[in-house]
């Protein structure tokens, strides 16, 4: 079954379909929660919370707004950040968005147009100056505000804003329109 069929089954409260969806995306979601939390147990628990949220709120997914994988990734990232804040742990966010220690997960994108967007996004990240990647990574995986990033890096807030604006503009352009 493809994502669309699985989602239709989940809307009919088919638990086996939900488990299949979990198996399809478990590695992707675990990768994101682990990247944020840097803790295996917490990342697994958070991943399960993400999929239970999907089970509870599957009606909120609107296929017209984009691929299921990107919707799911957004939920995972936000729930992991919430959990990071609850544990009051110091963020140990990596300073980069891509790394060589694992393959990117965009093969989960079933639509070729979505894959093209992801490839284009990846290519743009590789072109970005390291200091711009750094502020995005601290915000995306560390959940830091711009003020917190400025304090963390010991640079002026204005510099963080400038780097972030520039990077976000390029990334948004690279991703393109849905």
């Amino acid at each position, binding site marked *: 079954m493809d994502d669309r069929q699985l989602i239709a089954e989940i809307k009919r*409260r088919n*638990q086996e379909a*939900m*488990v299949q969806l*979990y*198996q399809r995306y*478990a*590695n*992707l979601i*675990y*990768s*994101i929660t682990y*990247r944020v939390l840097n803790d295996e*147990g917490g990342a*697994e628990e958070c*991943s*399960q919370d993400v*999929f*239970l949220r999907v*089970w*509870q709120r599957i009606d909120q997914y609107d296929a017209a*707004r*984009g691929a299921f*994988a*990107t*919707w*799911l*990734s*957004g939920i*995972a*990232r*936000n729930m992991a950040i*919430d959990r990071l804040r609850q544990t009051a742990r110091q963020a140990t966010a990596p300073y980069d*968005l*891509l*790394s*060589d*220690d*694992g*393959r*990117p*997960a965009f093969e989960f*994108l079933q639509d070729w147009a979505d894959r093209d967007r*992801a490839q284009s*996004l*990846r290519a743009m*990240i590789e072109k970005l100056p390291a200091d711009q990647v750094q502020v995005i990574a601290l*915000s*995306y995986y560390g*959940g*830091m*505000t*711009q003020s917190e990033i400025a304090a963390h890096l010991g640079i002026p807030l204005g510099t963080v*804003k400038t780097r*972030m*604006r520039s990077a*976000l503009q390029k990334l*948004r352009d690279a*991703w393109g329109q*849905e």
Partner: protein
Amino acid sequence: MNDQDISDRIAAYALNTLSAEERAEVEALLARSTEAQALLRSYEAMFGGLGTLTPQRSAPQGAAERFRARLAAEAAPLPRPKRAQPFPVWIALAAALLIIAVGLMVLLSPQTDDIVVILGDPNAVRVELMPQGAATGTIRFVALPNTNQGVLLADLPTPAADQQYQLWFITAEGIRSGGVLEGDQPLRVSVPDPSMSYTLGITLEPRGGSQQPTSTPIFIGTLPRLQG
């Protein structure tokens, strides 16, 4: 705020890095501006795409099975509250007599002998329950094939005075309690339906046990069919 400030705020909103006050401001803006809504959607989509670029790790072994158990617990129908019925005196008397009779039977029955028989049976099915997250201790469920007779053996940290460990039989159709543990005493258990396979879960519950689990299982195992 100029356009650039608005764009910054909406990006920060999508990244969930605003204070409650700032969030409220952005939400007010979103409520009245379709342009702001479109901008938010484009940031959310791009950040979702960023997630798919995260270098991959493999989910831990057994994670799917643990998720299946949590999903079953989540999806199980809650027990319907029973309506209070008038309680005739003769039923109360009969119930009292029955309780006395059952009490005498329990006192006279060699339950500990049953436990020894189950544990000593070379054909008994033995299931180790696996600790979840930071849980410590060991739990084993032993059951006789072709019967519904089982024993739960546990070596767990002492719970708080107002809590007890409780065993659950979990299937896609629902969850049934298998009883609560008293200290480190073996728990004699009746398997609800020996022709079915169950996910076994242990949760910490308020003393006396709960009708349905109120927390995430801290130990999980799979009991195969005992018959059929």
